[in-house]
């Protein structure tokens, strides 16, 4: 069982090694990287490549570790008891399985994605230490231990909003997805839009990497934004020539809405364009 990337996902060598290490040793894999570099998509692609189910657990600021294991629905039990329902005698009827339980009981072992773990409370990863390490937990209400028959492949993503505890990190493999270099980026574009004009991609990538170099941008455009932008360029049938004409008066690239998501960033570009115009009119002495 080895992950080598898929038709719709370009995995770099270091990413493949990290994923395969996690698959082989059945330890969680922690993925970090700039937003929009395909952290969440990775889990979906691994699931597809290995032909396993994907169980997604999206973490919010209010998510508790316990919710991933199970929840005891005491309120409906209380209601049932007042209505005289027979179900009330078995507490097991009111245990609602969480995502981890689902992943532990599925066969063959699925891929479990714990998305944006840093969104949760600072104690959240600590509460999952044992569960992820031993892949088992204890249900107090029914007094049973749930143990994974096959250890699922756990992929965890983080946007670095909070630091994760050391004890948690020790148990994971770690991979930092760095921003793709132009060559990898070209492959990624090819995978997503096969048959796209190469000239267009080349011009678009030049503009794209130039934009990322502009100092002071609040949000640098990333892979997903580039792909959206290319889609727009294609649907509006822009030609490479149109992109190539580097008129300083038109510093803002066409359809920039897909790349610059922030009002201040657009302003920044307009200001730069304005300065370029002024420099045109008054050549330096």
């Amino acid at each position, binding site marked *: 069982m080895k992950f080598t990337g898929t038709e719709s996902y370009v995995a770099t060598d270091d990413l493949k090694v990290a994923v395969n290490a996690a698959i*082989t040793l059945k330890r969680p894999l922690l993925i970090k990287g700039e937003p929009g570099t395909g952290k969440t998509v990775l889990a979906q692609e691994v699931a597809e490549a290995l032909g396993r189910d994907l169980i997604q657990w999206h973490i919010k600021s209010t998510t508790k570790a316990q919710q991933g294991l199970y929840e005891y629905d005491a309120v409906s039990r209380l209601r049932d008891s007042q209505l005289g329902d027979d179900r009330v005698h078995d507490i097991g009827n009111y245990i609602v399985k969480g995502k981890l339980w689902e992943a532990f009981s599925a066969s063959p072992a699925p891929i479990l994605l714990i998305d944006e773990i840093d969104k949760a409370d600072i104690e959240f990863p600590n509460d999952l230490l044992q569960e992820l390490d031993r892949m088992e937990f204890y249900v107090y209400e029914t007094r049973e231990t749930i143990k994974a028959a096959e250890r699922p492949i756990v992929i965890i993503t983080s946007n670095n909003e909070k630091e994760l505890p050391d004890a948690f990190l020790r148990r994971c493999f*770690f991979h930092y997805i760095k921003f793709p270099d132009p060559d990898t980026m070209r492959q990624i574009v090819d995978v997503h839009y096969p048959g796209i004009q190469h000239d267009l991609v080349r011009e678009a990538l030049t503009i794209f990497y130039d934009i990322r170099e502009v100092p002071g941008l609040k949000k640098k455009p990333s892979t997903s934004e580039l792909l959206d932008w290319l889609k727009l360029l294609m649907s509006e049938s822009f030609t490479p020539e149109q992109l190539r004409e580097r008129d300083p008066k038109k510093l803002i690239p066409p359809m920039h809405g897909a790349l610059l998501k922030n009002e201040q960033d657009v302003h920044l570009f307009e200001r730069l364009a304005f300065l370029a115009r002024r420099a045109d009119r008054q050549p330096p002495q």
Partner: protein
Amino acid sequence: MFINFFYELKNAKIPVTLKEYLTLLEALKAGVASYSVDDFYYLSRATLVKDERNLDKFDRVFGTVFKGLESVAEGATAEIPEEWLKKLAEKTLTDEEKALIESLGGFDKLMETLKKRLEEQKERHQGGNKWIGTAGTSPFGAYGYNPEGVRIGQKESRNKRAVKVWDKREFQNLDDQLELGTRNIKVALRRLRKFAREGAEVELDMPNTIRSTANNAGWLDLKMRPERRNKVKILIFFDIGGSMDSYIKMCEELFSAARSEFKHLEYFYFHNCLYEKVWKDNKRRHNDTIPTWQVLHTYAHDYKVIFVGDASMSPYEITYPGGSVEHWNEESGEAWMRRTLDVYPHAIWLNPIPQKHWDHTSSIGVMRQLMEGRMFPLTLSGLDAAARELNR
């Protein structure tokens, strides 16, 4: 077998633990890195580094520990074109050596032997433990007729080597020892916020109490939670003028962005060292000053004090009365610093000058002594350490 590597990482202050080392060995045993230096590099990186800030350090350590190994391992298995060998030999051999070769049966025969030797080596290496292999002999070296010790493996660039990957040091920007820049401001802000939110007491958590009471079938079940109020009060003294101007602008932006997180944030300017006057508006610094005594009396001792300055001046400006470059000061800067520190026990100094240069300026040493060592560089990790110090 990589114990040395492990300790080198530890020496480089990368937090590696025994568990991670064992995981690496386990993964190697399971064959995750299948006989290639690249894979071994990627695997050890995924296993031992858990924070992108340490990736750069890791690359450097990996580069030094495994220097030279990559050329041995890959040079031996590479296919080497015959003409290329000939060319290399012709280029590097002296006439005497060529004569010696002739006496051994001629160049062609030699090439044949060499090829056979390469063949053997290829097989042996495929058998396993390639990069730990002790066979540090290049095929040419084995014959001993190359005075310059040209190694075939190093010249060959068919494969993109791992050594290139770590020598590129792509993760340099993520190292938190770097100075604060616009790029890092966001992260720094987050550190400051974290700092502002700490020191919490508990309060009654109403929604949780109601929920757990319902879960408890009506029995009251009180729940408490940490209080999340901003209670940190801060006084900042900025050194302004000359070399500090660019840094001050950045710091002001940083702290005013974090302003909403602090209960109180007050700032004052001074020049080089704190004396009897401070001011709030730099344009009117000569007419609109505030006596330092007034500051000390106005803000209670639970304020935390942050000085931002390069502390680079003539030592007299700190230690002698009248030492100030701008005016006549009755009392020395040292006296004023001590006075301030007595009122505010929680105080730190942030210095934009890189820490490694601190020893070259004697006034920095004097100021550090005055601050009892609580001087931190203006970097992300410096801010972190400063926040920890202030929270003590």
